[in-house]
């Protein structure tokens, strides 16, 4: 008598055999085109908003950051003539797709432009550099033809005031003069370091042979003086390592991971540049994080959040944990409950130096807590923040609905907005 399970198994094998995966390059190209479509749509929406009522709303919602040189000035930008040899400006509708800051005056951005031909879309990218937070200078990205074959898919990593790396899937270039000159460097780690030098970025790499991040992970250090990658000699003995790229506001290097013996989620912190790690368990919570815990903080309090799958929301906020003893012990101050806001989190939480905790949500609403994350209320005093990012100079984000308007806050108390490109 034929066995249904055996037939199902054979059908499964037949179906798997009938599926042919396209080349990875085609998926990457699709990803790039998807990004281009979204940027174009955002740009089109921004064009409508900028001539509508949104501008007065933005101007009253964000308070300008006091500037010792010009008090009360809000940053405004217009790109100037690029430096260097003959350079072809980008065509098509330009869009900024990567911004990284060293501090609120020194930053870098990637600006792309795509031309859709009959057969395919061709994209070019250029680097934008600012040294005063106001004027942005276009610079060529490293490529012999002046364009990039990988289109708008460069990634940017800032390693210092003038040190940066740009990387496409298998290429990496390093500059130590803010993009005036570049040199090609290897992508693979070539050495081991005992400590994380100032300005370096921390990443994880799974020591994978057959599966994904199920063995002990490695921490990799992107070195600021060379743009090369080194392996950190001492990693926390955890799996599924998810490090913060830079130190949090309390000065600690934070890494979340899983205890291989118990499967329990843990947080590790190093206060000696990665030479040693203190590992603490965190309170259990409901839900599975997409990628570990994100840590932000001030010298007074540190917060860890996890985003994960919640019904009906994008980037559901699963939990908020707080520590007031440098990470030795953690309190679960907030956990996802039916209908309780904030239900989602866009980017990272914002730990203000005045003691508030701000959570920007995927719906656009901003929530603030004055009791360490136990309760939240809608905050309309600042305006919409969109996805919040933590850079070495503070918190940054793209003003929702605009492709080129950004905001910056060093401490969650002072705010400024600016235009890029």
């Amino acid at each position, binding site marked *: 008598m034929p066995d249904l399970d055996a037939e199902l*198994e054979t059908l499964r094998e037949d*179906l798997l055999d009938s*599926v042919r995966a396209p080349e990875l390059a085609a998926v990457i190209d*699709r990803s790039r085109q998807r990004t281009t479509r979204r940027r174009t749509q955002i740009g089109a929406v921004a064009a409508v908003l900028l001539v509508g009522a949104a501008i007065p709303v933005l101007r009253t919602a964000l308070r300008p950051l006091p500037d010792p040189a010009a008090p009360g000035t809000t940053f405004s930008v217009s790109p100037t003539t690029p430096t260097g040899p003959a350079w072809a400006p980008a065509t098509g509708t330009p869009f900024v797709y990567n911004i990284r800051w060293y501090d609120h005056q020194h930053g870098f951005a990637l600006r792309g432009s795509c031309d859709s031909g009959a057969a395919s879309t061709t994209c070019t990218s250029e680097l934008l550099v600012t040294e005063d937070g106001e004027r942005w200078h276009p610079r060529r990205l490293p490529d012999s033809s002046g364009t990039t074959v990988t289109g708008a898919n460069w990634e940017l990593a800032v390693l210092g005031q003038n040190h940066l790396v740009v990387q496409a899937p298998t290429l990496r270039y390093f500059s130590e003069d803010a993009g005036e000159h570049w040199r090609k460097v290897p*992508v693979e780690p070539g050495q081991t370091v005992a400590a994380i030098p100032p300005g370096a970025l921390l990443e994880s790499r799974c020591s994978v042979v057959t599966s994904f991040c199920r063995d002990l992970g490695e921490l990799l250090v992107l070195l600021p003086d060379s743009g090369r990658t080194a392996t950190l000699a001492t990693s926390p003995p955890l799996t599924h390592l998810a490090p913060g790229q830079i130190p949090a506001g309390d000065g600690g290097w934070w890494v979340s991971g899983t205890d291989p013996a118990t499967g329990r989620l843990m947080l590790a912190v190093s206060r000696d540049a990665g030479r040693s790690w203190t590992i603490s368990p965190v309170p259990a919570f409901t839900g599975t994080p*997409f990628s570990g815990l994100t840590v932000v903080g001030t010298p007074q309090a540190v917060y860890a959040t996890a985003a994960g799958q919640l019904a009906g929301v994008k980037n559901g906020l699963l939990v908020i944990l707080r520590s007031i003893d440098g990470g030795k012990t953690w309190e679960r101050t907030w956990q996802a409950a039916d209908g309780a806001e904030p239900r989602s989190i866009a980017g990272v939480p914002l730990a203000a130096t005045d003691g508030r905790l701000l959570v920007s949500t995927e719906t656009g609403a901003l929530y603030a807590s004055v009791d360490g994350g136990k309760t939240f209320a809608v905050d309309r005093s600042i305006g919409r923040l969109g996805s919040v990012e933590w850079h070495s100079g503070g918190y940054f984000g793209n003003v929702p609905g605009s492709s080129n308007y950004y905001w910056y806050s060093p401490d969650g108390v002072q705010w400024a907005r600016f235009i890029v490109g």
Partner: protein
Amino acid sequence: MADQEWFARLYRSYYRQLVLAAYALTSDLGEAEEIAQEAFAIAYTRRARVASAEHPEAWLRTVAVNLARRRWRRRSMLDRILLRTEPPPPAEPAGDHLDLHRAIQALGDEHRAVVVLHHLADLPVDEVASILDIPVGTVKSRLARARAALGAALGHTMIAEVDHA
């Protein structure tokens, strides 16, 4: 940046399984491939986050399921607008088990989804429940009824229990 190499490994090893998972909701293998490619394209834009996820495959499946549901809603709306009642027949895979494949296609949407996810995409019952957002018990009962229906359609006597993994 190291996550780009990781992404390539994930893609090579998991693409086909993701197609089968999407197939549970599309009933069309070509459309399932389209959804799987879109899910990987989305994952590529977020590869740093996906790389450090505890279950990258689950992340991809969630994206694929959401894409499939969105397409189904659009198609249903168009069907109503255009007064379409008969969907075009889905393409059939090559192989010797065409009767079984047709029997699976003939199941109702709910029962086909659990069969494809559990038996063809090889997912445990609790993951099937998570994907479809239904209780584990409901998955098991639908699997049992679906298997009985398949067995009857193929003239089998049921001898295997539902996998309780």
